[in-house]
């Protein structure tokens, strides 16, 4: 099956600089993690901070544009992987190894049509 691993972390932990020591460290760890995943990694990317986010909201057919992410939360979506794993337990095992800088959450979502 294919799963998306959505990484939620407090983005302020990385500081304002895009080359802060925290950022450099997590990049190293993600590279090592990606290597370990090998062919199981089907895709993924890191995201710019939520300060860069814009949201298009549709309500009753009306569309409005908002500055900021879909929801203001303590931890923000910062990146994702798409992986190939035989089942949920295997996906959980991978999600547990996924590097987070300090506290964080990884949401595991099966992809629609990702069963073959």
């Amino acid at each position, binding site marked *: *099956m294919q*799963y998306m691993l959505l990484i939620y972390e407090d983005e302020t932990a990385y500081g304002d600089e895009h080359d802060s020591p925290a950022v450099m460290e997590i990049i190293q760890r993600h590279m090592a993690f990606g290597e370990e995943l090998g062919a199981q990694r089907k895709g993924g990317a890191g995201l710019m901070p939520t300060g860069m986010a814009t949201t298009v909201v549709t309500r009753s057919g009306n569309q409005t544009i908002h500055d900021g992410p879909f929801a203001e939360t303590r931890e923000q979506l910062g990146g994702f992987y798409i992986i190939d794993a*035989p*089942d*949920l*337990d*295997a*996906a*959980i*095992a991978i999600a547990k190894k996924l590097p987070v800088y300090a506290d964080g959450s990884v949401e*595991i979502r*099966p992809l629609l049509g990702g*069963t073959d």
Partner: protein
Amino acid sequence: MTKALDRAARDHGARVRAALAARFRDLDIAEEAFAEACARAVTAWAGETPRDPVAWLYRVADRAALDMVRRRAVRSGATLPDPEPPPSPEEELMADTRLIPDERLKLIFVCCHPAIHPEARAALTLKLVCGLSTPEIARAFLLPEPTLAQRLVRAKNKIAGAGAPFEVPGPDAWPDRLDAVLSTIEIAYAKAHEDGGGSGRHAGYALEMLGITATLAALVPSEPEVLALAATVRFAEARRPARVDAGGMMVPLDRQDPMTWDKALIAEARPYLARALSAGPPGRRTLHALIHAEWCARSSLDAPAPWRSVLVLYDALMALRDDAITRLNRAVALAEIAGPETALEEVDALDAPGLADFLPYHAVRADLLVKLGLTDAAMEAYDAALKLGPERAERLWLEGKRAGL
């Protein structure tokens, strides 16, 4: 005839459902196919009960499941698999209960998967492993039947959709996953235990808990926490006859007459506990079982209550898991050894979210305040407890205490 069917479904239903679920990798199909086989048995067994009722049920359910798989395939436009040939006489002869693979452990693990909401896990286990009906489970969880039915559907969909494997987890995941299984059984048992009288909406339900813990202990005989839980459920059930008096009022543990406890169940519990203890340093559930064992060793109401050893065991428990509920339970024993003032200090120092909505917190505080002669404060604490809507037996007890002030 229906008796034979009832017995076969009750004693072996879990095994048949588990074997079907393992074969078809689908809890819905396993459940529906088994129900279908039982429905067919009602007429098919009217003349004569088959030689091996369980094998009959498995075979018929297996064919019903194949039909369902085929119908689903047709609906989704897939090519049809070849139909199964009808069973040959040799196969008929071969069919035997011993040939049905025992997949119950896999069934238990998938029902108790940590990716499922804990209460839904308990409901799903009661449904598929214990064979309770949706109305029975809804009553136990105090939920409207449609709500519970919806939760069960959602849980089954999650298992299928998220790809939860129908497997016994590997060694790495074993500790976490086993804990999820045991917690699920604890939640399910707590529902049965809340009902002190045991004659009402939980009649029979507690028996299922004896069954599932015995099954689990047989399937995983070397895990001390599994054995300990089997012991605890037995010790607790043994005291059921004494938990409510003739007027339907709750009787607290230290006032229960040990003569009315179920000696046979206590005797059944002890070897489980002994095996748990011999397996290594006691874990949380083994300590719980030991506390029950201390109480169940009391011979009569004249014998002293085992407060001192209970306190020692709660101290050991706190070293493993220091939480508000453990502290609260410990305070009850502490009051008997160190006095109500020390115990009240402990209880008042508790700070946990949801404590105000936790009935035992107010009940324990009220008792301590009574012992200290603080009548007004005790009155308030009893009111707070009663406001949380206890079951009848406990309500009568609390009302009685309050009226006695």
